[in-house]
């Protein structure tokens, strides 16, 4: 037997299969049609990117305080700078900015704790976030307790309001969504019918008509001595709208759990709520998380609609700032800024949901 103890030295790969030239040939210029597409793509890129960089960075004005400081041809970021605190807090009194800041910081800390996989006590943090944090946030933002001056809700605005609407809408919609989803899968015909009608109604109409309804019709539905704050009306509309979409996501998750799981739990003598709470829901929730994040992203984008019923969310306050006679003609800058903020939030959330999808993609794949 011939035995060679030495390793045969590695030979370089054949010429033309490695290196940048080969990559170019393989991915960009393989064939005449692809080469034409590549050149076209490069041209489009050139047409888009060069003027954008020129406008947004090279020719832009960054420092100053009034529109006279914007003398150059490019973007006038001075406008954003001058209005930045309004874009964040709306018409909140500037001496009280520390209050929303604390809430922002706590919110960010909670999110970070929940998102970073290594940190412990997730369950307790979640419980704290759901039970204690809303109270603290309300006391801080609204005031009227502990010598904090009252700031009524019509002064709330900007990114703060956007985040508030999205978070409250989401947290409120989750339990309603769970109940609706369970009801839609129920064996009881009347319960099922009610849930189907409820879900399909809210899903079938545009959010804007729901907000109109909440702002115009809700006062009619309640006794005349009860007046509901405009922000609360918007929140009710958003929550009901969101709960219908949430119910469908949850139903999708429930359907993915094999029926044998439920039947096995029933065979052990578990009651309905035990079966759902201990067996079906924990497994289904794992599958639902990406869907829930996706509906949250669309809710986050949809909160912009509240400006139509007169609330100043981030887009609403930007739009209001654009009609300021001192700063006319900077609509492009305003929209680019708002788009950038929304984009950062939505893009990072969608990346997180993709990450979760990969991470949770363990069982149930047969």
């Amino acid at each position, binding site marked *: 037997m011939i035995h060679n103890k030495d390793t045969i030295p590695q030979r370089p790969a054949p010429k033309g299969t490695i290196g940048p030239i080969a990559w170019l040939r393989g*991915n*960009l210029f*393989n064939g005449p049609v*692809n080469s034409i*597409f*590549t050149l076209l*793509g*490069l041209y*489009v*890129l050139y047409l888009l990117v060069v003027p954008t960089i020129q406008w947004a960075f090279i020719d832009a004005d960054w420092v100053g305080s009034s529109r006279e400081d914007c003398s150059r041809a490019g973007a006038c970021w001075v406008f954003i700078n001058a209005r930045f605190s309004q874009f964040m807090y709306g018409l909140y009194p500037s001496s009280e900015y520390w209050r929303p800041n604390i809430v922002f910081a706590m919110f960010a800390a909670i999110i970070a704790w929940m998102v970073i996989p290594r940190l412990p006590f997730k369950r307790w943090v979640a419980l704290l976030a759901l039970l204690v944090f809303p109270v603290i946030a309300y006391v801080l933002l609204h005031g009227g307790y502990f010598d904090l001056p009252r700031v009524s809700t019509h002064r709330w605005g900007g990114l703060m309001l956007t985040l508030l609407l999205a978070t409250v809408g989401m947290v409120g919609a989750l339990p309603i969504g769970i109940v609706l989803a369970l009801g839609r899968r129920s*064996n*009881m*015909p*009347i*319960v099922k019918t*009610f849930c189907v009608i409820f879900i*399909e*109604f809210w*899903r*079938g*109409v*545009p*959010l*804007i*008509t729901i907000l*109109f*309804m909440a702002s*115009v*019709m809700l*006062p*009619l*539905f*309640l*006794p*005349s001595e009860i007046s509901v704050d405009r922000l609360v009306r918007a929140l009710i509309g958003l929550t009901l709208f969101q709960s219908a979409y949430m119910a469908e996501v949850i139903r999708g998750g429930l359907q993915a759990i094999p029926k044998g799981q439920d*039947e096995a739990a*029933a*065979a052990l003598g578990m009651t309905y709520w035990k079966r759902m709470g201990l067996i079906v829901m924990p497994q289904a929730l794992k599958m639902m998380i990406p869907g829930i994040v996706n509906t949250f*992203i669309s809710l986050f*984008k*949809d909160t*912009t*609609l509240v*400006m*139509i019923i007169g609330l100043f969310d981030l*887009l609403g306050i930007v*739009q209001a700032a*654009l009609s300021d006679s001192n700063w006319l003609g900077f*609509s*492009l800058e305003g*929209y680019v800024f*708002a*788009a950038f903020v*929304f*984009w950062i939030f*939505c*893009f990072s959330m*969608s990346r997180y949901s993709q990450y979760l999808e990969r991470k949770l993609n363990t069982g149930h794949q047969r």
Partner: protein
Amino acid sequence: MSVRPNIRPVGHKPPFWRDRAKRALIFQIILVAVVAAFLAYIIHNTQANLNARGITTGFGFLSNTAGFGIVQSLIDYSSQSSYGRTFVVGLINTLLVGGLGVIAASIIGFTVGIARLSPNWLIARLANAYIETFRNIPVLLQIFFWYFAVLRTLPGARDSMAFGEAFFLNVRGLYLPQPLFESGFGLIPATFVVAIIASIALIIWNRRRHEATGKRLPAGLISLVIIFGLPLLVLIATGVPVTWEMPELRGFNFRGGITIIPEFLALWLALSIYTASFIAEIVRSGIQAIPHGQTEAAQALSLPRKLVLRLVVIPQAMRVIIPPLTSQYLNLIKNSSLATAIGYPDLVSVFAGTTLNQTGQAIEVIAMTMAVYLVISLLVSMFMNWFNARVALVER
């Protein structure tokens, strides 16, 4: 449902709260009672509130004179028309932007979705950048961008951007030449219909012949030639009975031609671009959902690449694509209600906006508006379910 063996002695009945069927019945009766009480409470309050405000309910207001103009109307409308007419004008405008939006979004979406899977690295990256940019920005913001930052900053009528003396773009909108049909033009649509019927007959005959004898004609190509060639021949034979009315600058504005208002353009662009980014993702995931083995098996049967796509990949991918595609179409139609933010006269803007403010008939107006969207949703889902069922038959 689990079946319980009867292990109790005969004659001994369990208490009713242990009986699942009775419990369900009681629970449902309670639910109905609660919902009915809630509805009664709301109706009672509403009646009290309406009485206090002196608003009479009913749909009589629909025949009152509206008294306001609408900038875009496909049917005859003036400020003397009734509120009922306003409703119809708004509905038609909604359907117009929704329909054209669905078409444009599908074209852009399918193109970008296929480009996303291109073997060309640059094209795939560009398509990905398009998707990630536009689907992560709120559609209302995009509508504002196109309207206030682009179309509202265009030059005035005198300095309009001209494209070959026929198309003009300025702050007041896009001006296109309008075709004026002379007598004898009716022959051309008639030929068109005949050509379509002939093509369908040809395709059916071709399929039968193919199944019976194995021979086939390029029926798709032939019908394309018939559908477009035949009307063209008739058009030339009748001496082209069409004249084009060109938009012309007279004084401060353009006269003649078709005017597309900037509100429509902004809404249509924003809705199409936004929805297309979702459709592109649906198309990509639909095509990727087909296992590669399908393509390989088709190649092993030595089907040419074109037929692999047409007979194996696309029919299966459509099954995955159609349900989410339907909900995107519905989203587009529902999002068209954002027209109210820029003043495009859609249903929500002219009816749930202006009409509601003028008449104060909140309940009737909102209910009619919601009913329209619900009916559209139901019709589109029904059509798509039917289509889906047809496509699903391909499976097994």
